[in-house]
């Protein structure tokens, strides 16, 4: 089949070795740069999470002091959110596949694309520096709430500046994608013919462009306040801590959709391919992405129901929060309907998609529970919330990312992994995941507050189950990545179209040639036209 000679992996340019990668403007190489760097930081985030769970195995001190534990959860949050969940799918799979999926040779601004990776690495280096420099690792939580973040003697300014830089990486990626989708589609690739992953990236890109600058400015203001005491947020100087919460969540809630929309996009690609039939409700899925991005920008106040925000604001934010659930529900129903009368192949990417639907549904439905005002007063800032967002961010985005990795792996590297081992890894992951995070719902309902180093004896059982779950989960992760790493070197050669997909990436060689297409493709059929075979 595809000769390995002329692929983007082996192409010979003017530069050699590592330089041929870190100076490449090829969207596929940049995608791989992101893959390696994002997964490295993911590993660090997972290790921090494991250490947190280990500390919580017993009440009181298990392995570290309170201040160290507080640094653990801060860095776990910062790394997982800014270095893993936000960039993972757009920066890796978006970069790699967006141009191919619309029949283009590259993104609109290849150099800007490389620059965004350097911003990412620059931000990441700052995060790592914040760990070791002078004041010690930041201990504010990833939310950097004032006034504590103004008083803490730890490296808060550095960590905040890192998040600021990472924001630029995200904005540039978004800009690039919007322009690429508008300007670079192949002839015949009308909007309603685009693969739905592209639609989801499009909606995401707008949120990245519009919302990220707000958090950028907010974080700069925190630095100004720390250095010069300008008195914007510090109540001691007449500032308003609630203002910070508003500014922070105006970005950070939409950021949740930056994290979940591309994940939904991947699931929408996987399901029709393995059901070998057309997607059910193409337009409903495409428009619901836009609806989520738009409505999702108006619900940030649901993080502040007990902050002292006005009664009227609370009522409005609660109502809007319930409404934003509807487009997500529409997607889930359309995915399930796509299985109806399909010809289903239960290969690993498909099983990851099923796991995603189940876990994401739990995440979304528990979001409804917290959206109700009276219940929110009870569960806000408890483990219930921690369970909820791990179901959405890890069970949702994480599992979709793994699903995408297994779906596109043969295309990206031209080799196939062991499907049996991948399935076993998924099962272990699934069991560990639910042990770890479902216990958190129960702990939260019992009244266990979050960000607690120590806890009362009645919470012990829940914490033990969660910690054991974290070990099972990590065992699954290790098996999954070991299987893929093994396949990189020893895997069988993959076919050009191992799953029988209809989107454009499956029409080119595995791994893709440097320029993607020998000639510009002309699109005559939809992305999911399994009828016209």
């Amino acid at each position, binding site marked *: 089949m595809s000769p390995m000679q002329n692929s983007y992996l082996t192409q010979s340019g003017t530069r050699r070795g590592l330089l041929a990668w870190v100076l490449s403007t090829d969207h596929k190489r940049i995608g791989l740069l992101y893959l390696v760097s994002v997964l490295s930081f993911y590993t660090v985030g997972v290790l921090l999470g494991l250490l947190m769970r280990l500390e919580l195995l017993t009440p009181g001190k298990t392995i570290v002091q*309170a*201040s160290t534990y*507080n640094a653990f959860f801060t860095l776990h949050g910062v790394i997982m959110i800014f270095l893993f969940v936000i960039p993972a799918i757009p920066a890796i799979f978006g970069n790699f596949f967006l141009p191919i999926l619309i029949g283009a040779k590259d993104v609109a601004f290849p150099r800007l694309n490389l620059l965004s990776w350097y911003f990412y690495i620059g931000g990441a280096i700052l995060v790592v520096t914040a760990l070791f420099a002078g004041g010690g690792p930041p201990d504010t*939580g990833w939310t950097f*709430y004032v*006034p*504590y973040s103004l*008083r803490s003697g*730890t490296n808060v300014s550095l960590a905040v500046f890192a998040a600021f830089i990472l924001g630029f990486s995200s904005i540039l990626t978004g800009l690039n994608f919007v322009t690429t989708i508008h300007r670079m589609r192949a002839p015949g690739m009308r909007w309603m013919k685009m693969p739905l992953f592209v639609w989801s990236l499009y909606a995401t890109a707008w949120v990245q462009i519009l919302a990220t600058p707000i958090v950028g400015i907010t974080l700069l203001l925190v630095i100004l306040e720390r250095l010069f005491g300008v008195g914007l947020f510090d*109540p*001691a100087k007449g500032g*308003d*801590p609630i203002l910070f919460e508003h500014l922070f969540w105006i970005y950070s809630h939409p950021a949740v959709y930056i994290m979940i929309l591309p994940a939904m996009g991947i699931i929408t690609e996987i399901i029709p391919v393995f059901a070998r*039939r*057309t997607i*059910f*409700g*193409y*337009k*409903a899925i495409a428009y619901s992405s836009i609806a989520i991005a738009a409505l999702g920008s108006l619900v940030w106040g649901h993080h502040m129901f*007990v*902050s*002292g925000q006005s*009664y009227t604001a609370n009522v409005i934010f609660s109502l809007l929060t*319930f*409404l934003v659930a509807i487009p997500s*529900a*529409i997607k*889930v*129903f359309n995915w*399930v*309907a796509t*299985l*109806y*009368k*399909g*010809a*289903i*192949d*239960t290969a690993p990417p498909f099983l990851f998609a099923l796991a995603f*639907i*189940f876990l994401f*549904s739990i995440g979304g*439905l*528990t979001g*409804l*529970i917290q*959206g109700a*005002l*009276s*219940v929110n007063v*009870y569960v*806000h*800032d408890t483990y219930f919330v921690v369970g909820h967002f791990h179901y959405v961010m890890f069970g949702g985005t994480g599992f979709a990312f793994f699903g995408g990795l297994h779906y596109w792996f043969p295309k990206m590297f031209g080799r196939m992994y062991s499907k049996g081992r991948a399935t076993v890894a998924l099962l272990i992951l699934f069991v560990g995941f639910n042990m770890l995070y479902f216990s958190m719902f129960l702990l939260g*309902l*019992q*009244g266990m*507050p*979050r*960000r607690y180093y120590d806890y009362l004896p009645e919470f012990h059982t829940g914490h033990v189950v969660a910690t054991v779950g974290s070990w099972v989960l990590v065992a699954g992760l290790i098996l999954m990545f070991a299987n893929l790493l093994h396949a990189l070197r020893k895997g069988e050669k993959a076919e050009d179209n191992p799953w029988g997909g209809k989107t454009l990436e499956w029409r080119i060689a595995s791994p893709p040639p440097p320029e993607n297409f020998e000639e510009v493709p002309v699109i005559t059929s939809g992305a999911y036209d399994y009828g016209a075979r």
Partner: protein
Amino acid sequence: MFPDAASTFASPVDGAFLFITAICVFMLALITFLMVFFTIKYRRTRHPESENIEGNLLLEIVWTVIPTILVTAMFYYGWIGYREMVNVPEDAITVQATGRMWSWLFEYENGRKSDTLHVPVNRPVWIKLVSVDVLHSFYVPAFRIKKDVVPGVDNSLWFQPDEIGSYDIFCAEYCGTGHSAMLSKVDVMPEKDFQAWLEGAGAPAPLSGKELLKAKGCRGCHSLNGPSLVGPSFRGIFGRREKVMTGGREQEVVIDEAYLRRSMLEPAADVVVGFPPIMPSQKGVLSEEELVAIIEYLKTL
């Protein structure tokens, strides 16, 4: 699953929770069942020829409209329960709760102060929330209430306990190293006992130095047995030589009564080298008798 229910808010909160959860469980079961059922029924080995159904407008409308009705009902249930939490009854007893890193202090209108909250059963209580430093959050799971304690902002909450007993108070908003040690108790007492307590009868003997260290949250940062936590350990503190930073200059001091007193009232004045200058002042928190009791106790360690 829930902890004790001891206030009038428990039933609307738990009711709304159960209503929403019941719908959610049903939805999840439906989605999961269909997903698994279709996957088994239409697996490729059994059902090799798929049908390309592109969509169905009626279905799209149905599964948009029904969820909209359901979530509106959920919103409504949450809202009516919450409405009660906002309207403070006129006859409520007022208590001021002050949060500081990392302890609570409750003050009654007659001047009575206490580290634990005491309230009469079946009477509304209005808690005014004051923070002297960073964000905290006043949380009593058994009462199903919570509100952030924000410096410079007049937050408050109310509740009406309906079960006699002792319940946990947590700080629910992260506030630094001692966050998880910022605990207290609320004692719900019969009306008569409460009045007696409020008048000072049956007031417990003043706390010993050892008890004070615990009640005021000192031990979140200072160990009694040697290891350094956020601050230096109390073991052997009296008479110890310590390098301290005084106004940006390093000097060596011998820890005596005057130093201990100053460290509690003006903690930023001489900070032991190697530790962050984060200790909150105890001015107005500790009475003169309590200061003396603590210093006397520290001498024995």
